[in-house]
């Protein structure tokens, strides 16, 4: 039968822990927009709050789990994917979402990202990339653009950055996508798709740390920062096409790769069932 229920309108307040407001993010921080888009996507995906488990690491990004009205776990720096792996394997009935930062996910937690992607366990990982360590006061991150000023690169960053989406895809993630906070509806839809994918899904959100990164690099207030981020992207019309004749170095957004490899949890459980079946038969 066709589902004729009318979708309730999204009200972010339904998803926030009101007693935890006001939140601690700086005015203009992109993480707030990302949180809104995530909650909207969860709403659209009709995920039961009681079956929703949000696991976060440490950083400004990591603090977001506390604001979500669900089962929430604020874990250790760089390790949320490991906690989420145990949680999802032990409780396949839960919908497990990880919120992590660029430092959390790519520096200290880089190894875990590689292996979570390789295993392809059904977890959605939302990485908020603000190119900096916000929580600890603005030190360089693996994603800080070259030449940018941070409190540990006071004459400009000399380390190259890397592409987290390419890494996740190369390691085997079932779903990989990227979006900017400026395109909040596109971001919501991308996360919605990631939530629907069975397997490890990785979404990089290009967020902004206005208060530290923005100030240090004279990037203006949050609207300017968001516009600048957006202008680094390929034009919307060309988002998913490979051959764009102009701006070949622009970052691509939207769904970047998707594959239907077996989901790890299901594969493990069927192997275990086979072992038990053989025992019963024998």
């Amino acid at each position: 039968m066709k589902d004729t229920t009318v979708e309730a309108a999204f009200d972010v307040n339904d998803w926030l822990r009101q007693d935890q407001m006001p939140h601690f993010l700086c005015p203009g921080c992109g993480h707030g927009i990302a949180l809104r888009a995530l909650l909207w996507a969860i709403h659209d995906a009709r995920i039961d709050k009681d079956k929703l488990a949000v696991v976060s690491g440490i950083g400004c990004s990591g603090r977001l789990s506390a604001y979500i009205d669900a089962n929430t776990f604020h874990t250790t720096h760089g390790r949320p994917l490991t906690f989420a792996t145990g949680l999802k394997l032990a409780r396949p009935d839960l919908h497990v979402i990880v919120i992590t930062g660029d430092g959390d996910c790519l520096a200290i937690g880089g190894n875990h990202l590689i292996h979570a992607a390789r295993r392809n366990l059904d977890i959605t990982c939302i990485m908020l990339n603000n190119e900096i360590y916000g929580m600890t006061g603005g030190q360089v991150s693996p994603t800080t653009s070259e030449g940018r000023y941070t409190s540990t690169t006071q004459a400009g960053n000399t380390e190259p950055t890397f592409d987290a989406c390419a890494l996740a895809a190369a390691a085997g993630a079932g779903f990989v996508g990227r979006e900017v906070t400026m395109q909040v509806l596109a971001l919501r839809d991308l996360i919605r798709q990631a939530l629907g994918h069975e397997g490890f899904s990785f979404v990089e959100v290009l967020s902004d740390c206005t208060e530290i990164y923005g100030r240090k690099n004279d990037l203006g207030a949050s609207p300017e920062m968001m516009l600048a981020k957006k202008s680094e992207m390929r034009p919307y019309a060309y988002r998913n096409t490979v051959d764009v004749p102009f701006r070949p170095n622009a970052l691509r957004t939207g769904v970047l790769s998707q594959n239907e490899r077996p989901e790890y949890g299901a594969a493990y459980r069927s192997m275990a069932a086979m072992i038990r079946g053989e025992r019963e038969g024998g």
Partner: protein
Amino acid sequence: MTATRRNLEGNEACALGAIRAGCRFFAGYPITPSSEVAEVMSRELPKVGGTFIQMEDEIASMGAVIGASMGGVKAMTATSGPGFSLKQENLGYACGAEIPCVVVNVMRGGPSTGMPTRPAQGDIMQTRWGTHGDHAIIVLAPASVSEAYSETIRAVELSETLRVPVVVLLDEVIGHLTETVDLAAVPEAPEVWRKFADGPVEGFEPYEVTEDMIPPMARPGDGYRAHCTGLTHAPGGFPTQVPTVAAEALNRTTDKLILHRDRIESWRVQDTDDADLLIVAIGISARAARQAVKDLRAEGLKVGLFRPVTLWPFPEDALRETVAKAGAKTVLVPEMNQGQLVLEVERVLAGRATVEGLGKVDGQAITPDEIAAKAREALR
């Protein structure tokens, strides 16, 4: 009828004990001399509907174990020295957030990679203090294969019912020793669990201060939507920096173990009633000491053995009483390190007896003869 007497290796006994106690999740990373625990778990868990996963490192294994336990499943990991060091940040998380879990640590030589295949007992202090900050933790130190089995069962029970991480500390000799274990001699493991919250969802506090100091745990899916964090938290589960609330939260987790000390502490004594000299030892060193006590008694020397099975919290009252009752003047602590257990014994006895250490760090187990020689010297 299934045979209840089986030849088992210490590491295997840990794995089977955990499964018997209801452990259904294991995450680990191979390291000598603990790898057999993971191997047995990988073979046995699927048969009982459990899950085994070999993670990318020890940090990840500890994280996965905590994650599984947060999901409401009994979970365990196993490792050795360097791996235990890697687990410590997340172990601290489990202490702070009161997540039940069991960590088997089969000691090897150190520091660093040390002597992987040789026996040592260098992690006595690491298991007690090996995470940042003040924390409570339980460490059980079996001295035989059957005790590895029964103490791992007890580790699961204590961890679940008290909401605290429990370390099962073996040395390489006990881990790799094969002995006959009568599985039926161990009382059937009761289906013990942590207290799961089952009251009203409205107004539920995940770290409620109850009389027994053990807050009922919110299981995801049961409707509580609690927050769990390693940050110091108020009873409501959210971070706090209010001085009184923060101090209460930290103190409760340590006071909890003091309150339940009688259930936790366990020790064995041999020939202590009239002992002039008391030996205090754990693991394989206690096995050697047992023989030394027999040999010395045969020579007419009054020597006894006190063996803590619960290493932490240290059974301090029991040791003091044993020394007082015997009127022992000297206490000898043989151990395979430069002197760790001896520090605790000195602290506990605080001048009530002369405490002497016997450390050995050459990768060989302490022999009964070495202990006996040192005891004779001390008695002279």
